[in-house]
């Protein structure tokens, strides 16, 4: 599974971090960091993260 975040859209809301903490995190300045090729076992979490992104900036590519 490949995760793509449109960093032009992302506004660091951090909702994805709650939904998929193994894939998304925030640095100390509150900016998003993420793993772009997470294990497929995390698919449900990542889908949830994509749903809860206020900017709808997260895409999953197979």
């Amino acid at each position: 599974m490949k995760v793509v975040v449109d960093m032009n859209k992302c506004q660091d809301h951090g909702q994805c971090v709650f939904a998929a903490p193994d894939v998304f995190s925030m640095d100390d300045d509150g900016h998003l960091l993420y793993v772009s090729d997470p294990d497929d076992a995390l698919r449900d979490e990542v889908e949830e993260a994509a749903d809860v992104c206020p900017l709808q900036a997260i895409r999953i590519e197979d």
Partner: protein
Amino acid sequence: MVVVGASMAGLRAAEQLRAAGWTGAVTVVGDEPHMPYNRPPLSKEVLAGKAAFDSLAFTPKGSTADVEWRLGTKAVAARLDERAIDLDDGSTLSYDGLVAATGMRPRRLRCPGPQTGRHTVRTLTDARGLRDELTRPGVRVVVVGAGFIGCEVAATAVALGVTEVTVVDPLPLPMVGPLGELLAGALLRRHEERGVRFALGTAVAGFEGGDRVTGVVLGDGTVLPADVVVESVGSVANVEWLDGNGLDVGDGVLTDEWLRVGGRAEVVAVGDVARFPNARYDGVPRRVEHWSIPADTAKHAAKSLAAHLAGREGELAPFAPLPTFWSDQHDFRLQSFGAPVLGIDDVRVLDGDPDGDVLVGYHVGERLVGVVALGGHAVATKAARYRAELLKQPALTVQGASK
């Protein structure tokens, strides 16, 4: 399955019905001509011209590929005893399960005066019309209502270069109802520093002008010159289509803790229109107009419908979402977790100070019921750390609270 309302809550309901195992037909009826789209940017990025109108559409999931979308079609009546919905094109849909997802519409001011030049912001069409007007040179804007949409629109107008923006509200501070005085005062100062004017503690008595608005008349007789008026004075639930079924639709659709409507296991309500008890708090049913609620309610309601249709009653935990809310205004963000309004009489600064980045906690006794951050990224991240704290708090029971 019939879902009435084709916006975020309707879309999430369709997706969650599939996720909950429903493989039968799903029809979503929506009176707007568009596929579901994201509303928050309508008062922010899209109104400011930083994002295109066509960037708002949600990306539908593969699981909903066979959902039938009846767009531009309004549900006009529900006959719940017969399990049928009448549409404005004269057709009728029958159902095994029904999802009410019809959301809200803006409340309008009932004041004398011209209509032209008066706007609300709820739909794509509204935002397009308002953007065209805000980008006219030299335009003077009056925003009626200092709630979150009013404050966002005022900030966006300033960002667009409008030099005369005035916000009118009968209350003494912006957003004081949901936030309390400490943050509302901090918010007022920030807006004023960035060029927004306020006329607070005063209501609108009427509008001046011939065909088109030229001014807003306040209660004390003062007239604020205005070419554009934005009315952001709250919203009204779209429930008329449910009339005649003996339901409590006084303020949205009343549900139980499984989001079921009128004691019927085959009818649920989701999103802004649902008035549900939250087991995390005091058991009093409330509508919650936050962006996170359509997804939360859809998930719970879909499970409740799927369980009923599969004959597995009573296996669900009561609904207990942690509300979260944000609002972007100028260069700062409000970020809220929990239910601050329940603890509005005991607000304490947790971090920072009200003139800079600040994080405040709302309490009932010693129990933390909500946190709100105001400022830049760093403080919003700090607020997020309290989210786990809020999730750990035991359920709040208030003496004398009635269901």
